[in-house]
């Protein structure tokens, strides 16, 4: 019984089996939503991993890994000669070391390749000093610029990374080299974590926040502060006043967009604009931002949260080409 309960309580078992067992026939998204309603964890977004079956890693010259341990999410990307071979995107736990390993293990889970085949591994992000398998660390600023250059093409000049707890505005050249940047990491206002708190407050699954904030008849005034603490009390006041949850979300998304614009304007907005990080998936914020600055952000088929880890793996590839990589068996 004890072992059963232990297995039942382990997050992976819970995630993978329980809801699928309880609700066969539901799609991933529906399972997510059902799970969120049942557990009350409305902030919980879907973790993922992926493998490019077309790439044969044995034939590649350099295999590089980028691990981006952020404050809220962690990603690992495996690249073969600068092409994405596998990736994973998971939630950062309370321990950066574990999160880095978990992200890498998740990326390597379905591969025949082992870690000793890797020529270079770079750690980046907030928890980069705690990536035990990394050969060196690079700031997430450099990595996001490089990653955005890969994901969105060389026309990108302004990269906006809205992460879990900070906002970075980066200007870069056609090679993805940073020319001007600014990071606001003192205050988490207008970041992903703030949005998670809001999703929980209003009992709306995080994946629906964007759509529902746009599903309103009239745009409400933005809450005066994107500060998570103040906005929360302001939102409660709005709910009490009789605004619908959708309208409250709209007011908060608008406040976030305003906050992001303030930071963007400090480095100057130059097209093309690319948005990386989890907030790029929130239509409510992105559309309001687009409306205000009048520039359409570029789109990508890849997960926008991967930009940092992709950049790190690409730097690893460049360093390998400079002869700094490990020799492998």
């Amino acid at each position: 019984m004890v072992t059963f309960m232990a297995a039942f309580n382990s997050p992976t078992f819970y995630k993978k089996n329980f809801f699928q067992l309880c609700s066969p026939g539901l799609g991933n998204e529906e399972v997510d939503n059902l799970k969120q309603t049942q557990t009350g964890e409305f902030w919980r977004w879907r973790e993922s991993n992926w493998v490019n079956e077309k790439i044969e890693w044995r034939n590649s010259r350099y295999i590089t890994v980028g691990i981006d341990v952020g404050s809220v999410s962690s990603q690992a990307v495996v690249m073969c000669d600068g092409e994405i071979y596998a990736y994973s995107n998971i939630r950062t736990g309370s321990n950066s070391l574990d999160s880095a390993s978990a992200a890498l293990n998740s990326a390597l889970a379905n591969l025949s390749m082992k870690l000793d085949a890797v020529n270079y591994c770079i750690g980046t992000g907030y928890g980069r000093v705690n990536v035990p398998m990394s050969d060196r660390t690079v700031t997430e600023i450099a990595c996001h610029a490089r990653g955005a250059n890969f994901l969105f093409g060389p026309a990108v000049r302004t990269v906006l990374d809205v992460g879990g707890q900070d906002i970075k505005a980066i200007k870069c050249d056609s090679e993805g080299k940073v020319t001007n940047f600014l990071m606001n990491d003192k205050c988490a206002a207008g970041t992903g974590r703030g949005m998670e708190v809001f999703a929980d407050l209003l009992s709306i699954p995080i994946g629906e926040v964007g759509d529902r904030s746009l599903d309103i008849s009239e745009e409400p005034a933005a809450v005066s502060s994107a500060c998570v603490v103040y906005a929360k009390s302001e939102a409660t006041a709005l709910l009490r006043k009789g605004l619908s949850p959708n309208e409250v979300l709209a007011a908060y998304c608008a406040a976030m967009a305003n906050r992001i614009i303030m930071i963007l304007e400090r480095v100057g907005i130059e097209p093309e604009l690319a948005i990386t990080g989890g907030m790029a998936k929130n239509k409510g914020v992105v559309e309001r931002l687009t409306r205000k600055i009048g520039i359409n952000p570029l789109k990508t088929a890849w997960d926008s949260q991967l930009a940092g880890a992709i950049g790190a793996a690409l730097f690893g590839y460049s360093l390998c080409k400079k002869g700094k990589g490990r020799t492998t068996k």
Partner: protein
Amino acid sequence: MLVHHGYSDGSGNYFITINSEKCDACGACINACPANVFCIFAEDENDPLNDRPVVSIDQEKRNKIKYECAQCKKCGKDSILPCLIACPIGAISHSW
């Protein structure tokens, strides 16, 4: 590369901007600053393919620059800061 170290909060923008392209890591600002906010990084943490040393703001002080710099900022906007005087190539600027 223009590197803005600092933060913006409800009361304003507090950034020290260092032009890392211009900066040759001579260290004059480090000696001039009474609050020791500057330090030399052996390699540019934001440009991994460049092995040149560069001046940056002490990691510990980035989030309290407003207070660290207060002793030089006391005379208001017109005061000329020791770090700006010391830098022979004008690579440093302040946002407030």
